[in-house]
């Protein structure tokens, strides 16, 4: 499903992350336990991948939509941003160190958080698992 470049254990970085974004909602929503854990969450947040921001809308724990940010007024409660290759590594089935967890990325200076962090912190494991949901696809590839 996703192309792994053998020998270097890296995604095809020109297309890989965009493909993951297309499937983020499907993968996350397929996890009933994840959706259950997030059943009280209703918000939008920004997911920054390289130079592109996506608006991820959560309704009752399900991803209702993932869409590129079009207007400056399109925004969310908080944002999580990292470079394209960092996310590409993050979504590997066995990610390398410093890229295996959102807060490990933050600790290593590879990701930034902005905005109102309270809903993120109140549901931290949910959001970590939501963002990591595409890894299941990497395992299947």
């Amino acid at each position, binding site marked *: 499903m996703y192309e792994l470049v053998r020998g270097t254990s890296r995604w095809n970085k020109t297309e890989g992350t965009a493909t993951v974004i297309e499937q983020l909602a499907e993968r996350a929503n397929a996890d009933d336990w994840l959706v259950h854990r997030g059943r009280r969450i209703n918000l939008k947040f920004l997911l920054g991948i390289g130079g592109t921001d996506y608006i991820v809308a959560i309704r009752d724990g399900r991803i209702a939509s993932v869409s590129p940010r079009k207007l400056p007024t399109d925004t969310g409660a908080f944002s999580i941003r990292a470079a394209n290759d960092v996310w590409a590594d993050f979504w590997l089935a066995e990610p390398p*160190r410093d890229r*295996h*967890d*959102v*807060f*490990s990325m933050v600790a290593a200076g590879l990701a930034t958080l902005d905005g109102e962090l309270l809903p993120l912190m109140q549901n*931290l*494991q949910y959001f*970590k698992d939501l963002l990591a949901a595409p890894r299941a696809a990497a395992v299947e590839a």
Partner: protein
Amino acid sequence: MVEFEPITGRYFTMQVAGEDVRVYVEEAGSGIPLVCLHTAGADSRQFRHLLCDPAVTEHYRVLAFDMPWHGKSNPPVGYQNRDYQLTTGLYRETVNAFCAAMELDNPVVMGCSMGGRIVLHLALEQPDDFRAVIALEGADRLEPYYDTDWLNRPDIHGGEIAAAFVSGQVAPQSPDEFRHETLWHYKQGGPGIFKGDLYFYWTDGHFDDRSAQIDTSRCPVYLMSGEYDSSCTPERTEATAGRIKGSKAKVMADIGHFPMSENPELFRRHFMPVLEEIRKTGG
């Protein structure tokens, strides 16, 4: 017929900072005393695999206790009227009080994370009291990467957020069973305890300006860190080893911040040769 594990758990009372504290300790084995210090915000259950490993307990008397305020140890009487905060001095006094109460003669002391930091302080300040120290995920200089106020506030579940933060400190290769057992300990911590421990771990415990004074000829120092540790990184471990002349450092591949509890089988492959070396050479 039930098959009990070889661990014996008991309670006793010792005095720390002028206060009585009721402490829970588990032990197994006989021989050289090996005192095990758990990570911030957790308890001695992290060492259950060592306590049940015949290869370890054949030559070592393994003792793992819950720090006051942690696990099955009580906080001091009157805890409800104050915040918990661990300092370098309080931590040292606690470990010394435990070793004195147990009447341990020249024990090996091994700690993980904040435990890995305090053993370095012990090697510096009391080199003749310990046969050797083993710092798991321990460094002399660390940098915080989040505000610990998030860990103790009424609008966030303290156990959930503690476990969620440290979940990134478990290596992706670690077995799910042990990953989630390790996280469960964090979900069970008392309110504000992880935060109070991190005061020592991230703020009060820095001593990279003095770690070079550790005399490893009097107290051998072993540093063992997991590749996936985001706080005590391989780089910080190596920097610490560079300052402590004569120390022996090892970075363990495919392991995170909780080697003994997140991947016990892989950890013992790194750990057993160290124990053997200490036993045969005195460190």
